[in-house]
């Protein structure tokens, strides 16, 4: 499942479903709204393009790290502190591939998928600056 949606998902159920034949390791990344003195987080996506990018990232990770299963669920809309923003569930034969595949996916999402976050505070809000100024991975 590669999806951008407002609803949360049941990570436990996704882990069970990820265990394809040959699985020896499942790695889950769960990005959470951190309490940086905010009231809520608001997320926005260029949905069609972002979904295509997530598909590509999942495909690249699957090939590069011989993954057996990949789920990426990126939530949008208003999320409270502690809520799940992004869940990546990766299954592989061995832990090295599972960790590396998971890490590859989160870094690729941070680098180039058109999704934005605004931290809402008592006094208004501010858009979170991207980690990569040009929307591409830094080369230095």
């Amino acid at each position, binding site marked *: 499942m590669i999806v951008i949606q407002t609803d949360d998902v049941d990570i436990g159920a996704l882990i069970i479903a990820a265990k394809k034949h040959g699985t020896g390791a499942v790695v889950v990344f769960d*990005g959470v709204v951190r309490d940086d003195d905010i009231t809520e987080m608001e*997320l*926005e*996506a*260029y949905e*069609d*393009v*972002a979904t*295509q990018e997530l598909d590509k990232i999942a495909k690249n990770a699957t090939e590069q790290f011989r993954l057996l299963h990949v789920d990426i669920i*990126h939530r949008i809309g208003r999320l409270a502190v502690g809520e799940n*923003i*992004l869940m990546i569930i990766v299954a592989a034969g061995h832990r090295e591939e599972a960790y590396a595949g998971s890490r590859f996916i*989160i870094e690729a*999402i*941070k*680098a*180039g*998928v*058109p*999704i*934005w*976050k*605004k931290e809402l505070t008592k006094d208004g809000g501010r*858009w*979170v*600056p*991207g*980690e*990569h*100024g*040009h*929307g591409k991975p830094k080369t230095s």
Partner: protein
Amino acid sequence: MTVKIRFFARFRELFGADIMTDVVTGTMFTSLITTIAKKNPEGYAAIFDEKGAFREFVILMKNGKRIDIADAAKTPVADGDEIAVFPPVAGG
């Protein structure tokens, strides 16, 4: 011919999410966005620098594909195109 312009995040707050606009054949990406942006001085200043060039961090897309800022002035838009203009991404 009609083109759809989509702004996201801070640019959406300044310009609105979607703008449908009629353009003449041969209109280039940069001139289209310049025309739209000039209607909103604060929005214009967010996207363009003092010399009228796209600010270096601005990301441009045509039909879901990245257009380099350097190529935008000579990239024509066509009927039905979806143009997107947005600040650096911050998902995940």
